């Protein structure tokens, strides 16, 4: 029996959309891998981080950086990785301002990464003696125990700036609340949708969802991440244009949505 190979009707438009989108992404990622890094806009979060660290330095306090309750081995790896990508910048700033930086983590893999990144940052600023290995704390991979550990660091170590990025389980709100209670300036951001409201309400500056990936890419300048973001930006712009066009045409009786169900 010979059957023809063909496209499934009703899915053709989706297929075309997928091909175009992926082609765009590949083009931009290849381009930035070849060295043409697109410029990302400076995110207000960076200014917020600078301000928080500056205030901590003025008041003679310490800094805490948390990459979230997700570990590097789980499905929340993306959030943690984006957060860790932002660490080199924060650690160097801390070294410049001669601040103590606390790095609690719930992942063994991340423990080594955090130690390396922080040590290197203090070295690059010519202040390796300020780096304290004991400030990198392995707490627990259990979300509740991790939060309890971070909370005790916040309360006992005179923290003036708390930077909390990454994926957070439901304990996230307790960290934010504690940071507030001890009077630390909090910059937070998470891709865990249910936790975003708590971060927005409780932090002095909050990054929303995808912004943490953008922050990571902005700081790390990793070609794949930056290229991917640039490609996605073009796609978002195209979507916005189609939306605007579609809304206008819809008013005069032309329904573009028919084209999406071919």
């Amino acid at each position, binding site marked *: 029996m010979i059957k023809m190979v063909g496209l499934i009707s009703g899915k053709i438009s989706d297929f075309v959309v997928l091909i175009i989108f992926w082609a765009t992404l590949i083009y931009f990622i290849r381009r930035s891998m070849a060295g043409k890094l697109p410029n990302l806009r400076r995110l207000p979060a960076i200014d917020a981080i600078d301000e928080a660290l500056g*205030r901590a330095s003025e008041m003679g306090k310490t800094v805490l950086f948390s990459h979230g309750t997700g570990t590097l081995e789980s499905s929340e790896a993306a959030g943690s990785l984006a957060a860790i990508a932002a660490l080199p910048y924060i650690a160097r700033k801390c070294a410049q301002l001669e601040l103590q930086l606390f790095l609690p983590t719930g992942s063994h893999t991340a423990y080594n990464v955090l130690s390396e990144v922080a040590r290197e940052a203090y070295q690059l600023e010519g202040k390796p003696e300020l780096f304290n290995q004991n400030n990198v704390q392995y707490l627990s991979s259990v979300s509740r125990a991790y939060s309890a550990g971070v909370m005790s660091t916040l309360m006992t170590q005179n923290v003036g700036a708390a930077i909390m990025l990454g994926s957070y389980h439901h304990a996230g709100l307790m960290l934010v609340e504690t940071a*507030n209670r001890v*009077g*630390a*300036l909090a910059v937070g951001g998470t891709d865990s*949708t*249910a936790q975003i409201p708590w971060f927005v309400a409780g932090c*002095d500056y909050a990054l929303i969802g995808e912004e943490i990936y953008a922050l990571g890419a902005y700081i790390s300048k990793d070609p794949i991440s930056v290229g991917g973001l640039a490609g996605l930006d073009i796609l978002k712009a195209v979507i916005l244009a189609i939306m605007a066009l579609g809304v206008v045409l819809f008013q005069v009786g032309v329904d573009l949505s028919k084209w999406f169900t071919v």
Partner: protein
Amino acid sequence: MAEKTFIEKIQEIDPKILYAILIISLLIPYVRPLGIPIPIGAETRSYWNYIANMPEGSVVAMQLASDPSTIPQTRSAHQITMLKLFQQNCKIVFFTLRDDAPPLHEEMMQWVEAHLPSSKKLAYGVDYVNLGFLADTEATIAAIVADLKGFVEEDAYGNSLSSQPMMANVNSGEDFDLIVWNDGSRGIYMFALRQWQEKLGTPLLIIASTINKPGIMNYLQSGQVAGAAFGTEGGAQIESISGYIGDSTKATEPGSLSALVLTIVLLISNTIYLVKRFQTPTNVKGGNVK
């Protein structure tokens, strides 16, 4: 200055006092019921209309992902839906994506059997089958949609699925007329939306805890979800439309009173915050008040 220390005291109130206020406001309606009428929301109305208009003989898939913590909120809507569908002689395929849901299904099944008219007796394999627990990944739903009997050979009780009379013409997602998806608080309704509704256009109704309401509202507006019942309120609305007044209606009272009390408490704390903030105009950076 004495006033200021009072404000600070209120700001840093011992959480135990808040907890006590919460508990007391929750307990009052149990002692003295308030008798609050329940308004019906548009999404619940369209949910119920869909159920009530299912033609005889329709095949419905019912997924249960509530656990012991969320079942008090979703039980009413779920079991009244089961009852209504059986009354209309629909055939139901039950399954769950949560390993701790199967006993909850059995409990609701008992409730349904007790509330059916005595003339109607349900027969397993003819009126319904129960697949039991299936691994909670998107692949599970995709596998059901592609080839149900090829994916699960046996039901929850170890019977061969192909030997059940009602399964004779049910082979894949295309053979279902409706999906009723009880999401609990999991937020896995995207599995049904992406793998089933989007692929085949099968209408999708959702029962869920309130936590998922904001996300699902978007898909209701776009028409991808046909109706929904959210949390205790949704359950109480279903109870009042269907006439089976029960636990959800009762549970809206402590919910109502505690919400009223907490809203007042939060308003007070916010007012104090604003008053304090305008008293110290130096702190304009939007930073911390401490």
